[in-house]
C-alpha cells in the first residue's frame, strides 16, 4: 500500500479516490487507516486489491473536482471556447451536476481517467509482490 501511494504524483495523493461508508478517502488517508489497523483501513485495502473505487465513477469524479475547486478558490480557469470560469462558478455547476456543460464534461472525463490510472498502478505492486 505504501509503495503504491509513494508511486503516485504528490498532488494525486491528496485527492479522493476510494469510498467507504459515508466518506471518500485519499490515498494518504487510506494509507493512514491501513497503518493504524482500523476496520476502515481493512475495507480500503480490500478495495485497492480488487481495483475498485467503492462507488461509481461519476460520484468519485465529482468529489475529486469539488476538492480541486475548493483548493483552487480565487483562481480563474480559462477554457478553449474562450470562456473564463471562476472556480466558485464551476464548483456550483459541479454541485448541480451540470454534466452537459462541455467544459465540465471534459473535466469529469479527465478525473475519471486519472482516477482509473491511479488505481491501476496498485496492480503493479500486487503482481510483483512488492
Amino acid at each position, binding site marked *: 500500500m505504501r509503495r503504491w501511494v509513494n508511486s503516485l504524483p504528490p498532488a494525486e495523493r491528496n485527492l479522493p479516490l476510494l469510498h467507504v*461508508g459515508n466518506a471518500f478517502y485519499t490515498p*494518504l*488517508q487510506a494509507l493512514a487507516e491501513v497503518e493504524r489497523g*482500523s*476496520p476502515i*483501513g481493512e475495507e480500503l485495502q480490500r478495495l485497492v486489491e480488487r481495483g475498485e473505487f467503492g462507488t461509481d465513477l461519476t460520484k468519485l469524479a465529482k468529489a475529486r473536482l*469539488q476538492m480541486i475547486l*475548493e483548493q483552487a478558490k480565487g483562481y480563474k480557469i480559462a477554457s478553449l471556447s474562450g470562456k473564463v470560469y471562476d472556480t466558485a462558478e464551476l464548483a456550483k455547476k*459541479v454541485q448541480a451536476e451540470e454534466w452537459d456543460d462541455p467544459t465540465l464534461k471534459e473535466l469529469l472525463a479527465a478525473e475519471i481517467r486519472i482516477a482509473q490510472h491511479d488505481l491501476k498502478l496498485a496492480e503493479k505492486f500486487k503482481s510483483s509482490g512488492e
Partner: protein
Amino acid sequence: MQSWGRLLNEVEVLIRAGRYRDALNKLRSDPNLYNYVVASMIQALQSYPGGQIADLNGNIWSTTQLANDLRVGRWRPVHFNFLLAEIGIIRRQLGV
C-alpha cells in the same frame, strides 16, 4: 453494566446497518466509553492527512471542523466512519 467489548460490538453492528442514531445512543449509554471513543476520534481527526474529507453529498469537511463538532456533540454522517475506525482500534487496545 455491559462490558465495553460487547457494547462496541453492538455499536459496530448498528453503524454497519446505517442506524446511526441508535449507534450513538448505545455508545452514550456508557459515558466513560463515549468520552474515551470521542477523545480518540478527535485525536485521529487532528492528525488526519490532507485536513479535508469529502462525502457523497458533495460536502467537503475540514477535519478541524469535524473535531470541533464532536467536542460540542454535533454528529454528522461522516463522523460515523471515524467512529467505526476507532471502535476497531479501541477493541484491539483493550484486547476485547
